[in-house]
């Protein structure tokens, strides 16, 4: 990540000053210090969360905060059911199921669509692109009630597969936009060569397009995974004891057992971990995904 951001700056810096003056060097040191300070202060709540998760409940609830408190895994042990309490595995598995399967479904639907929008362009392709985008602008609450009624009447309430479908619709527009910009970079000649050899569309997509566009497809998948993993409103309204996801588990966690700060922080760290890993891996593409492919 730092390599890609450093590149343009380095060229600028070398062009501007072959031999930095003492003043310039002092200025650079100052900027560096300021940036470090800003970074640490801004990230402090998150760092605090991690630190608190390793404190005992007694140390977590002191005022002023105890920086010298000894570290313990108790928060994590309790969160994982170490004291005979409920384990977080069902919600974590539900979140994983909903996120993985919806991501898979998104890729299956978005790849052919992006192909039609970038390589074999359908007529009025920009209009179609904007239709996809416009569904993303439709607030979730606009369809929540009918979806709830539908789920209740068909017995799909508290069913993880309904969430899979909804998360797919939530992420599909972003995926189509991102992938169309990635597929635009695939050379048409190799696709034509495959077609001359008699390859049908699924073969072309699977064997030719997907391998070439693999990094872009991976980034798209990570972003869809993050959004599904983070989602609360649908999960809160449409699931309950059986299909509740990790974010829903977090919200109930506080009320049902009173507040245990260290345990809550441990839970937050655990639930955020997959997103943090996926996010750091895809941070450049994350902007692109969130800005619907507009910033490259």
């Amino acid at each position, binding site marked *: 990540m730092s390599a890609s951001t450093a590149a343009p700056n380095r060229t600028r810096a070398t062009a501007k000053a072959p031999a930095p003056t003492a003043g310039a060097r002092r200025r650079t040191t100052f900027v560096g210090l300021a940036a470090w300070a800003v970074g640490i202060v801004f990230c402090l709540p998150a760092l605090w969360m991690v630190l608190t998760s390793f404190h005992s409940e007694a140390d977590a609830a002191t005022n002023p905060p105890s920086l010298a408190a000894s570290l313990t895994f108790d928060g994590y042990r309790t969160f994982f059911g170490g004291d005979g309490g409920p384990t977080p595995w069902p919600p974590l598995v539900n979140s994983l199921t909903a996120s993985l399967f919806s991501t898979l479904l998104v890729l299956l639907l978005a790849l052919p669509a992006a192909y039609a929008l970038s390589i074999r362009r359908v007529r009025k392709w920009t209009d179609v692109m904007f239709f996809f985008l416009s569904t993303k602008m439709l607030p979730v609450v606009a369809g929540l009630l009918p979806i709830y009624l539908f789920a209740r009447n068909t017995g799909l309430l508290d069913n993880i597969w309904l969430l899979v479908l909804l998360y797919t619709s939530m992420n599909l527009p972003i995926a189509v936009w991102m992938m169309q910009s990635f597929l635009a970079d695939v050379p048409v000649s190799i696709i034509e060569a495959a077609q001359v050899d008699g390859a049908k569309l699924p073969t072309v997509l699977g064997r030719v397009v997907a391998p070439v566009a693999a990094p872009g497809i991976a980034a798209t998948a990570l972003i869809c995974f993050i959004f599904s993993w983070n989602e609360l409103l649908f999960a*809160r309204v449409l699931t309950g004891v059986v299909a509740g996801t990790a974010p829903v588990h977090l919200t109930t966690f506080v009320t049902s057992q009173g507040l245990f700060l260290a345990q809550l922080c441990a839970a937050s760290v655990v639930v955020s971990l997959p997103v943090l890993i996926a996010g750091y891996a895809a941070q450049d593409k994350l902007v692109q995904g969130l800005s619907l492919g507009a*910033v490259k």
Partner: protein
Amino acid sequence: MTTTTAVRPTPPRPGPPSKRPTGSRAKAWATRAPLLPALVFLIVVTQLPFVATLVISFFDWNSLKPDQRHFTGFANYGSVFTDPALRESVLTTVLLTATVVIASVVLGLAFALLLDRTFFGRGFVRTLLITPFLIVPVSAALLWKHALYNPEYGLFNGVLTWFGNLFGIESIAQPEWTSEMPLMAVAAALVWQWTPFMMLILLAGLQSRPAEMMEAARLDGAGPWQMFRFLTLPHLRRYLELGVLLGSVYIVQNFDAVFTITAGGLGTANLPYTVYETFYRAHEYGLASAVGVVVVIGTVIIATFALRVVSSLFREEASRA
């Protein structure tokens, strides 16, 4: 980002479908076919429910009294704009969105300018600054509510006490953040979460500045402020617009923070929370749908501007290809 912006190969595009009479129709369908599954799926899962919401919004329908359901025309919309609580949630939504977007754009710009410079450990600082955006939104909201705002053992009051002790003050003021300034409390947590997003967009903008132009201006004797004011800012304009508009679209829809930090209490209920509350707790299906439609209208107004901005960026992209 830079690798993709670098040199984009310009593959020969197949022109518009040719008007050859033989098999052109079949060919057009062959082109269209890969698009259809995604299109049909989206229409069924997103557009149909909205149409249903629109229909329900014209009914007086409380799920606890299902037999009294009847058509009421625009009565629900009347309630949305006359009921003081609902009117307040419209105002809250506007206020919250505006505050969060403006604050996070300003902070994000400052951070982006800082990260645009070279210094030791820039990659690490960048990682620190992005982290708030990568924490699951509910976790972030719970973190702010319990670990930071809590009046007894939250970090903020803890730091106040610590400072107090430092200067020998025995009992320093211990504010009840979420009850004394509920909207600011929600807004601060959201600004913390959204600043990295703005920073990332603006950083992409900063790094796409043509280096030669900046160099030329510097050689012509432009100071840092002049370069920022007359080169960087105009260049960033579209990125700023994009950040503001996308931020608005996402933040207007915020549910997690409001639900978690204040549970919509003390004048922090925004429209999405109100919809949730109205149908999930109060069982007023017709009214909830009307609020939902109002949210959509508001978002459409913002989105129209957003689409125009995105479309201008997109046209550039299309002409480049």
